[in-house]
């Protein structure tokens, strides 16, 4: 690695330390959102964990959008007035979008596509976990890992938008994966950067590994391969379905060799994609609403 590339890698890693942490409230709200039995009080307690988030939710509730006459100052009031589902969606989108925002809109990668792709992966990864009968408590980790797997790209793009544009365009048409080009150019890939962010946000080790090895699941520690492979396949499937990213390359094909030893069959995987576009569209519409 040349000195220049090495310096760039260091600068990127240092920039992670300056990133705001994803609040524990955000992860809690993600978990509540996918739990059909969650109680209104669970939601209120989760939002209350993060005063900034609470402020943002109340700001949205009190915005001209809902036009409520009297100012709403308590979340309990907001939930009773506008309903659990509305407040849950507001909180979830506020939590996620205030933590992550791609400050660039170049051709091959923009904010909306980034979210669409991330959401597709999270839904697929969770569906795989369920299909593999992973214990309920771990299923959410698959979901969050899917959502976060490309988080490293946010840092890369915010620092090196022009170079990233070249890299991702090249990767989408060529035979080279983006991670190799990133390593060559920046000395570190979005996967490795993503794992560092996940670690800073105190995600469990398994999830850090899933983010780190989502392009190279064979390198994940044996006891964490299942999640890493799930994110890896979810990523490829989302690319193949052209959800969020307009182009896919030959490298997105899932080989029989890669599937070997994975508990799900190709037909299982096909089944999981059936409702995906609709689910992504739904998730996307409220993410859009919060911006």
């Amino acid at each position: 690695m040349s000195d220049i590339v090495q310096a760039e890698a260091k600068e990127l890693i240092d920039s992670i330390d300056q990133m705001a942490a994803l609040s524990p409230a955000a992860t809690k709200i993600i978990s509540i959102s996918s739990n059909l039995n969650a109680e209104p009080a669970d939601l209120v307690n989760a939002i209350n964990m993060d005063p900034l988030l609470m402020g943002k939710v109340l700001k949205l509730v009190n915005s001209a959008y809902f036009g409520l006459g009297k100012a709403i100052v308590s979340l309990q009031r907001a939930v009773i007035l506008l309903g659990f589902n509305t407040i849950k969606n507001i909180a979830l989108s506020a939590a996620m979008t205030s933590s992550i925002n791609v400050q660039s809109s170049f051709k091959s990668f923009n904010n909306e596509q980034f979210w669409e792709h991330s959401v597709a992966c999270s839904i697929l990864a969770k569906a795989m976990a369920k299909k593999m009968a992973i214990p309920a408590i771990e299923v959410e980790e698959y979901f969050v890992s899917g959502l976060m797997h490309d988080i490293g790209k946010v840092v890369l793009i915010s620092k090196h938008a022009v170079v990233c544009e070249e890299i991702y365009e090249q990767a989408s048409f060529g035979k080279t994966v983006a991670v190799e080009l990133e390593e060559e150019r920046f000395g570190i890939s979005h996967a490795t950067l993503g794992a560092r962010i996940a670690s800073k946000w105190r995600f469990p080790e398994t999830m850090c590994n899933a983010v780190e090895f989502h392009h190279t699941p064979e390198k994940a520690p044996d006891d964490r391969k299942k999640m890493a492979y799930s994110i890896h396949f979810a990523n490829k499937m989302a690319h193949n379905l052209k959800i969020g990213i307009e182009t896919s390359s030959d490298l997105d094909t899932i080989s029989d060799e890669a599937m070997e030893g994975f508990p799900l069959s190709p037909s299982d995987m096909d089944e999981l994609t059936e409702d995906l576009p609709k689910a992504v569209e739904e998730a996307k519409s409220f993410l859009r609403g919060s911006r």
Partner: protein
Amino acid sequence: MEIKFWGVRGSIPSPGPNTAQFGGNTPCVEVINEGEPLIILDAGTGIRKLGMDILKRPDIKDIHLFFSHTHWDHIQGLPFFTPLLIPKYDITLYGPVHYSKNLEQILSQQMEYTYFPVRVEELAAKISFNDIIEQEITIGEDVKVTTKFVNHPVVCLSYKIEKDGKSFVYMTDHEPYRNLFADADELSCEEGRQVAKDQNEALVEFVRGVDIFCVDAQYTAEEYDPSRIGWGHSSTIASYDLAREAGVKEMIIFHHDPDRSDSDLQKMLSNLHDISWSPDQDNVPVRLAREQFNIHL
């Protein structure tokens, strides 16, 4: 003011011999004020026949259609509302703000090719969409429409229509606000109790003294058990209590359960009378909404 019922059933159309008397069409109510634009509340399957009737009335050109909310039973008749296909009509649609989609998106989606052969863009009438909140709207010269959020699993509005000192409230798909935090910590519980109380009191004020109060009363008191609480529909007695407290002149039971036969509906009404009639208080006359039933005020 004239009020005409074209669909009174909740959830799903329920045609058949057992529902022939009260009707099986889903919600649609017409409100006519002489010399003013036509007002329609909800576009359940009842709106199909109303649409055909409108074609026979040459004076009508301006139509204002208000959706309480966009659950299926309140929008499913819209694609079959013939005036939408005719250029002479000017149709303004109103519905409550929805966090993730606007009214135009929601209604257009039900008319995508997958579900229906005619798309919204192909409709010939002049159509406009309005996402509304709690507010006052003046229709035509002098018809006042006031809105109020009610308690349903999706954002839902009740409408009060007033003209020349006459008033009509349409409050479908609502159940009394309750404390959602009863099992939570003490502070949340107290806040939840207070909020539910405030909201229920605000509804009484909204309905205060109206001539006709058409209200959701899908369940009997026995049916409104914990398994149905939270579905966004009231019991007859809860709606009656609201009507009595607000001093309305007449209550109309609306949004009939699809499984309720004509004779069951009559029984439900007589049971309500038995449990609610009081010699010490002003009693509110109650009737059941029925298709083709007209009220003149």
